[in-house]
């Protein structure tokens, strides 16, 4: 199972969902879907924008956990 650790990185960078939404260019609703692990897929462009905005690596955002 792939887990999105967006809230962890947002807390580390002291960034709110609104700020991240503006920087990345995704709606608040879509970011919420991502943050709550309800997303079914993520585009590379979105991942790229999030990593740039949070100044982190992909593995900081995406984590594989055995079910």
């Amino acid at each position, binding site marked *: 199972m792939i887990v999105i650790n967006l809230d962890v990185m947002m807390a580390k960078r002291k960034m709110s969902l609104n700020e991240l939404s503006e920087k990345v260019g995704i709606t608040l609703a879509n*970011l919420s*879907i991502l943050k709550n692990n309800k*997303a079914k*897929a*993520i585009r590379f462009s*979105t991942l790229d924008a999030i990593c740039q905005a949070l100044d982190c690596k992909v593995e900081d955002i995406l984590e594989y956990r055995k079910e």
Partner: protein
Amino acid sequence: MLKIPNKISIWLSIILSVLFFVVLVASCFYMPLLIYVYMSLKGATVTDSTTEITIIAYAIVGVMAIADILLFILLQRVRKSLVFTNISVALIRGISWCAVILGALFFVLGFYFLIAFAITFACVFLGICLRVTKNVIEEATAIKAENDFTI
């Protein structure tokens, strides 16, 4: 081929389904007369089986009315752009079952009027077409859900 704009096409379908429902309701009041006239034209006399024929005819009208109502609800959802949802799939499934039930009713009617057997085939074929359409919409709904949750 004449291509009607989308919005007009949907409204045309809605108007036709409402008109059809009105005809169905009207036929309920005139059913005994219609059966009497048909049997007179065929040269048959009114017998005990007329009651059975009337019951089957009312059952056919009832199932058609249910199918028409489901069609109307489906058209309203199409008008609101709520096509690829589980509710729409359920509505199409319901209409396909109505077609199959109509086929069964016409099959029974076929023992009184042979022509009804031909209508049975048409109804069952329509039911099969609607089931395939339901499968297509169901798959499209799953693909849309996948797309909607792709960020």
